[in-house]
């Protein structure tokens, strides 16, 4: 039996070169230090795949029309325990994905991993973050319950503050002056086709660039981490092992070239990645079973006594919109747009070889305050989650 299996494997390998592909994929040398922090990227990928799988299941039943969207999900809730759990997994994995991808970005930012030659890894990463956020926002419209309807009203109104073309964008998204059937079908199209069509190629590009430039790029892995301010006390470089791809991938600062200590991706890093990803999947599953995905009453545009509660990931912007006077709202909406543009431009602004966060105040301080403001606005806005 064993010999037959081996023969089958050899046959398959002769035609697909699977053996060398696996070797190349699994035996890359990765840095030893900070390995647990680097599990966030693979966890993000696992959660996106979970979104994809549960999303495919949901499209088998969901009907994207204002008369049947809510009915189809209510059917899951009332009559299909398994389907209800699948919807719960879809929702909770989306929530945790947003949190994990945010942490992944923060980690990359603080460790300076966006620097040469990894600028495009960062740019594709920012693109992925924006797309995931877009998926979450458009997904929130789809159940067509009260929460979904009023979220659609608020969110589709935001582009209207864009100078000159704001009203056009709003009309294009809504398909009319008000939120209605066309809004739902367009948002569904964006959610299941348009955004994934950009998202998945971008994931491929992100992973390809990751492999090309070597893993991580954080300061703690390199000789530069041990450099004193005066440039002395650098420990002697260890014997650099031949690795694929070779470090440095580009002729950048010698101090930030080869990692000090490396180990094979498999099994060392894959085990850590597996542990974190499995733990997150378990958490998602437990939340999906215990709490599930809520479904409020069917959308009623004529209601006068419903208090809309924003999704938690929308809280920082929502809190800003609540706080800022009407006249200054366009100014506030510049913040997220400007923030994304700044993030995209970051590797081209902060080009110095220094990666130590304590030695990069010009980037770290505004970045830390941006993160702090987002956290504080979320905290302040969370009062509305309890409908106070």
């Amino acid at each position, binding site marked *: 039996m064993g010999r037959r299996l081996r023969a089958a494997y050899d046959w398959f390998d002769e035609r697909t070169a699977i053996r060398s592909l696996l070797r190349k994929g699994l035996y890359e040398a990765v840095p030893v230090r900070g390995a647990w922090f680097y599990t966030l990227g693979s966890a993000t990928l696992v959660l996106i795949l979970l979104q994809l799988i549960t999303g495919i299941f949901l499209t088998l039943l969901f009907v994207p029309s204002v008369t049947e969207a809510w009915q189809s999900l209510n059917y899951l809730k009332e009559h299909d325990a398994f389907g209800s759990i699948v919807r719960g997994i879809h929702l909770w994995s989306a929530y945790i994905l947003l949190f994990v991808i945010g942490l992944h970005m923060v980690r990359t930012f603080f460790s300076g991993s966006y620097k040469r030659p990894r600028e495009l890894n960062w740019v594709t990463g920012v693109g992925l973050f924006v797309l995931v956020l877009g998926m979450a926002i458009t997904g929130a419209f789809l159940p067509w319950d009260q929460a979904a309807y009023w979220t659609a009203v608020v969110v589709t109104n935001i582009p209207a503050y864009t100078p000159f073309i704001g009203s056009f964008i709003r009309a294009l998204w809504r398909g009319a002056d008000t939120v209605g059937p066309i809004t739902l079908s367009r948002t569904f199209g964006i959610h299941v086709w348009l955004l994934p069509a950009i998202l998945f190629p971008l994931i491929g590009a992100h992973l390809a660039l990751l492999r090309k430039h070597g893993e991580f790029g954080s300061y703690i892995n390199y000789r530069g981490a041990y450099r004193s301010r005066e440039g002395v006390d650098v420990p002697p470089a260890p014997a650099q092992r031949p690795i694929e791809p070779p470090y440095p991938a580009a002729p950048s600062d010698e101090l930030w070239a080869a990692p000090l200590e490396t180990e094979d991706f498999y099994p060392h890093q894959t085990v850590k990645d597996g542990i974190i990803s499995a733990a997150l999947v378990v958490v998602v599953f437990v939340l999906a079973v215990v709490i599930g995905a809520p479904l409020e009453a069917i959308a009623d545009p004529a209601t006068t006594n419903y208090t809309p509660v924003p999704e938690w990931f929308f809280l920082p912007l929502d809190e800003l919109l609540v706080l800022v006077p009407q006249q*200054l709202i366009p100014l506030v909406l510049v913040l997220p747009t400007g923030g994304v543009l700044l993030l995209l431009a970051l590797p081209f602004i902060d080009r110095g070889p220094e990666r130590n966060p304590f030695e990069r105040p*010009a980037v770290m*301080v*505004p970045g830390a305050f941006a993160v702090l403001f987002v956290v*504080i606005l979320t905290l*302040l806005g969370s009062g509305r989650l*309890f409908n106070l």
Partner: protein
Amino acid sequence: MNALLALIGPAFHALQTQLPAQAPQGNNIVGAQIAIGSLFSLHILIAGLVSGAAELGPAIEFLGYVRQRRSYDRLAHGLGRFITYYFSVSSTIAILLITVLLVGFWGHFWTTIVTIGWWPLFIEAWTFVLQVSLAYLWYYTWDPLRGFKGVHMAIGGLLAIASFLQVFMIDVVASYMLTPSAQNPIRLALNPTSYPLTVHRTVGNLAYIGFAFGGFCAIRYLRAKTAEDKRFYDWAGSFGLLWGVSMTLLQPVVGYSYAKEIQLHSYGSWYKMMFGSLSPVFLWQITLLGIMFLTATLYFARRLRTDQAKGSGILKLLSVGMVLTTLLAAQPYALGFSYETVAAAGLNRPFWEGGLINPLGSMIPWKVLALMFYTLIAIAAVVWYLRGLPGVVWGTARRGEQRILMLMTVFTMLMMVTMGFIRENSRGPFLISGEMTIQGQQDVPSTQPTPQSSP
């Protein structure tokens, strides 16, 4: 001796006949307010420091561990010592406040608020026990646990959590007094202003301890005898100020959010702060905030200039920006005591039309813009100071910089007292907003002031 007795005797006799037989409940409201207000201010000034130190100290210890810098460890240890010294002072004042003044002067109020806020106060009492136990454990195990830094930092982390919880529980009760909600423990804890007040106060305490130890280190720097001490106190003073400014620049957003919740849920109090009798104090507060940022920016510029480090010039430019922003923020809206009095006199029109209104002093958009500029300029100042720091040689600071650090401590204390004064007086004439008046501590039917058309 007989002469002394002859002098004191009539005074005692007079007092004996004039003192009331029991606590002056409702008889001397102003006296009670002054006694309670001043002692509360003193309590908050010390308790805020203790809470801030219990949250910041462990964070500094962790930072020192990550960066392998002994100066951080020494600073965190110093904060630990401060907590062990002053915890009892703050607690004694709190106990005096409760057992003598609150129960004696406003017994009905105290009984009522303890009945309503029993759960938060119960939890607060136990977090207090936890906090004091952990504070002493954290400080006195510093050397014994030097080989087990992880364990020691974990104790510090628990201390920070206990301190935060204690402040949160007190804030639940304090915020209830301003925005009462349905009386069950969860709704009480989630009353509309408990959340913003907790964030506001936590950030405030963290800033306050930074400014306070900055001032303390300035005094120690001037008295330091050894070069090592000079280096340490110069660095620690700068670190304290930097930390204080970094926390304070979050406050415009947090404070604005807090004010917004007050506007939505206790309109009468908000109106009093913005347009009524408290508006001059509010104007002072926003001006003082600008003065604090300006003073800090001047310190940054001076400290870099002392060692000819890069960035001093830009920081001076930022100081000019801060002066202009402070001048904008300090503009009064009503050119009278308050908008309320100006409106009552029928003069609520722009000054060029013969009225007493200065549109440049309006909250929207000018003061909001000023708050935004405060934050942005302060962030820029912090960045440029940090960029210049590699050129600073610690231990070479001049007296002027140390005076600025001490001044900042005074400004911060003024800010704390001003904010406490505004918050506590905005409820007037109520002890519990809309439910119990100060006058004779009478219960009133629960009617919240409703929003009216505001200018």
